[in-house]
């Protein structure tokens, strides 16, 4: 009975693809999200998700995978925001706010001007992981492997620059380049995650599992591991909820990650011991 409940959704190949993509998203989002929440970059993540809209629309217009439009767009926007923050007196959140509202508006106008697109606005905004193609799956697997490899290779460097930027620079690390790499990875992760939860909810997947983990752990590496566990549970749980309760996949995934956060918050409030 339980086995049937677990396996039944995966008699369909589109659900198998969705499961693999959800697991990928559940792993890479909290891994990067651990840095995002500790560097207070949540707004940046939200902004990047909205800013890639024009790139995605262009991809749909010319009939290619949205990855090919969104990833370059995300990387350019991430680097541009990073550059604006470093080189101008405009504050971080102001630069981000200007960029993301402007680019999101351009994306919406493009959709309204271009009739006959193969994707509807709701799928872009809320995600539809069950309608991903085989090529989307392979692209997701490649990008997930790439992000994980870079994150593992630069694990301590990213911690050092986030914790003590000047100290990292003095010791000889290229702290600025490491920050730009982090922004580039952030844009890739967001584009990968857009398939599952859409533009509006992507920041939830990025920060909520990591934030939930931060409430019940007291080390960065534990935050990453517990965050990944929460992320994968959220993504798979949301997929099941979507299948059995006929709910949209994006909001289901975001809802479960929020429920997990509430559980972590309750655990913290009740002062149960942390995972030491």
């Amino acid at each position, binding site marked *: 009975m339980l086995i049937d409940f677990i396996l039944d959704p995966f008699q369909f190949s589109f659900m198998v693809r969705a499961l693999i993509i959800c697991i990928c998203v559940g792993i890479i989002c909290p891994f990067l999200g651990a840095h995002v929440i500790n560097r207070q970059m949540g707004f940046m993540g939200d902004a990047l998700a909205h800013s890639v809209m024009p790139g995605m629309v262009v991809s749909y217009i010319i009939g290619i995978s949205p990855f090919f439009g969104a990833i370059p767009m995300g990387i350019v926007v991430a680097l541009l925001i990073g550059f604006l923050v470093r080189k101008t007196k405009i504050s971080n959140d102001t630069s981000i706010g200007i960029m993301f509202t402007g680019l999101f508006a351009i994306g919406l106008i493009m959709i309204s001007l271009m009739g006959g697109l193969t994707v509807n606005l709701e799928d872009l905004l809320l995600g539809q992981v069950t309608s991903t193609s085989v090529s989307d799956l392979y692209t997701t697997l490649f990008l997930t492997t790439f992000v994980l490899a870079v994150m593992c290779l630069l694990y301590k460097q990213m911690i050092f620059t986030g914790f*003590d930027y000047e100290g990292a620079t003095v*010791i000889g690390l290229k702290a600025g380049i490491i920050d730009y790499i982090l922004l580039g990875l952030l844009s890739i992760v967001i584009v990968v995650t857009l398939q599952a939860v859409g533009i509006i909810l992507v920041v939830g997947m990025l920060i909520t599992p990591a934030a939930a983990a931060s409430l019940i752990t007291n080390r960065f590496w534990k935050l990453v591991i517990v965050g990944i566990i929460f992320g994968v549970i959220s993504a798979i749980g949301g997929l099941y909820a979507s299948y059995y309760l006929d709910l949209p996949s994006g909001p289901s995934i975001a809802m479960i990650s929020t429920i997990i956060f509430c559980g972590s918050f309750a655990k913290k409030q009740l002062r149960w011991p942390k995972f030491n």
Partner: protein
Amino acid sequence: MEFGKELVLDQVTFAIKPGVLIGVVGPNGGGKSTLFNALVGLQPLAHGKILINGHVPNHRSGILSYVPQKEQVNWRFPLSVLDVAKLGLMSKGFGIQSFRFGTDPLVKSSLEKVEMWEHRNELVSNLSGGQRQRTFIARALVQQADILILDEAFSGVDVASQEGVLDVLRDLRNEGKTILVATHDLNTLSDRFDEVICINRHICAQGHPNEVFTKEVLIELYGSHADMFDGHQIARHSHVN
């Protein structure tokens, strides 16, 4: 040194012997942090050069270690004392150190030297100001830097903890390390430091604390506020050990 077109630090010429503990004093905005930033390579020089042992320093060699002001550190990162000390290993490799299991003997001995080994599993964000400073000094020791530069090392640190940090710095000085500490506290200079460098947009004086604080130097440092030092002798506070 310049910020944009504005000259913020000029006529900065001084030499330091190895194995001395130096206090750098001056008013807010006088250029202490700018000088330190230039020494550690964070701030490019508009003119002139910095030589260490006769050579332009290669910062990747780890010869200099920097303990930043507490405001410059992101305390949100949940790192333990041990985690922070281990970051000093980054000067000796790139990436591969991240995956070393167990505690490096150098990390252990450095934490023991600053008496933080027993606190190794505590979060740095939960430590007192003095314990945080000692943790960062341990990171510098792991880095095996010959020169330690501490910006506002005693800011927000209670007097007893300041003495604890100073004991550690004196021990390191006795082992041959050269240490520069930015400080605002003129009262304890003669007890704490072998030399002082007075800075206010330029080097006003350098020497033993009991000798450099003339009326003229105080006026150069603090302008009209120098009156508050009338009748005040730097060396008078020798009761602090």
